[in-house]
């Protein structure tokens, strides 16, 4: 009995180790200090994309069939963390960054 339970547990763990979300996953993130100016995030993504500034709060999202760039300007100043996520596509690191946008 104990042996069969052990076999079942091992099998379940093997499934847990091999079965993961079928989603692709790309992300890029960082922190920007813009003083009194706004923060903008330039992102280059493919398929679904989500921009978070600060990183826990989504402010933009969308979809692009091919690699495309986008600017997301937020009305937030000071030091802010940002994050760009894609679950079905990808985020291009070199093409994704934050910058300050003047009033």
């Amino acid at each position, binding site marked *: 009995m104990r042996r069969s339970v052990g076999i079942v*547990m091992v099998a*379940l*763990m093997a499934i*847990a*180790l091999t079965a*993961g*979300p079928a*989603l*692709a*996953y*790309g*992300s*890029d993130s960082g922190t920007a200090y813009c003083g009194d100016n706004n923060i*903008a995030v*330039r992102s*280059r993504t*493919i*398929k*679904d*994309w*989500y921009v*978070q500034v600060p990183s826990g*709060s*989504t*402010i*933009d*999202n*969308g*979809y*692009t*069939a*091919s*690699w*495309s*760039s*986008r*600017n*997301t*300007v937020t*009305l937030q100043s000071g030091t802010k963390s940002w994050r760009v*996520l*894609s*679950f*079905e*596509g*990808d*985020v*291009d*690191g070199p*093409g*994704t960054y934050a*910058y300050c*946008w003047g009033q």
Partner: protein
Amino acid sequence: MKRVRPVAGGTRAAGPPRLLVLGLAWLFLLSACASDQPEVGVEPRGSSAVVSTVPGSTEPPGDDLSNRLVGGLTVGTWPAGDPRAQLTPISVPPIGGYGDFSQGDPFEVDSFEVNRLLSRCMNDHGFAVTLHGDGLGIHWADIPSEQNELAAAVSISCLEGLQVPDLASSVLTLDQYAEVYAYRTELAECVRGEGYQVPDPPSLDLFVEEQGRWSPYDAVGVLAGSDWDRLNQTCPQEPVGGFGVWDPGDAIAPLQP
């Protein structure tokens, strides 16, 4: 026809360590064995959504938020390890009724149409998003912060409901890369015509090697607001109507705001 590896790269998040996965799987099994209570979803903060364990929620568009969120959408949580939990802890089943791209060629998907439908789906569910001037996304400025996680869940569901075919798991053929390259080359002329300095495009081989990332917009640099929108409307980053309606040699069609 020679097939080319699908797009990859960017900054990928590292997967969880095996021991962590093992531990989580063990905890999951223990918790599953310890209780036979039905799984209870989370209640979004400050929203009118109800917790429900009723599966499925495909709603036709057109109702107002209170009817749809209270009576329609089933709110739950993501399975352990699902990357979408990084965006929001709330999950909502795919929302249908706004369009179905599942039968189309992934290469010919019209991104502008996808984003219009996404915007409409979000608006119908009570989230006051606006379509970006570049047509390639929606802005959430008017969504109260306490509804942010719920809005993210609905947005994921709206996109899933459109059943856009998985471009990432398919592969672009060399002909398709050549078509994208031809559009971007034409786009470079368009962007130059708007007064921006754009260097010559890379070779087609390098463009393919970089999985189609090069764009004349790389040279546009810091630009936002109405200037960005105006440039994107004159010189859309993707063909209006998708690559299914654009052929090399065609002019760049402007995007109607």
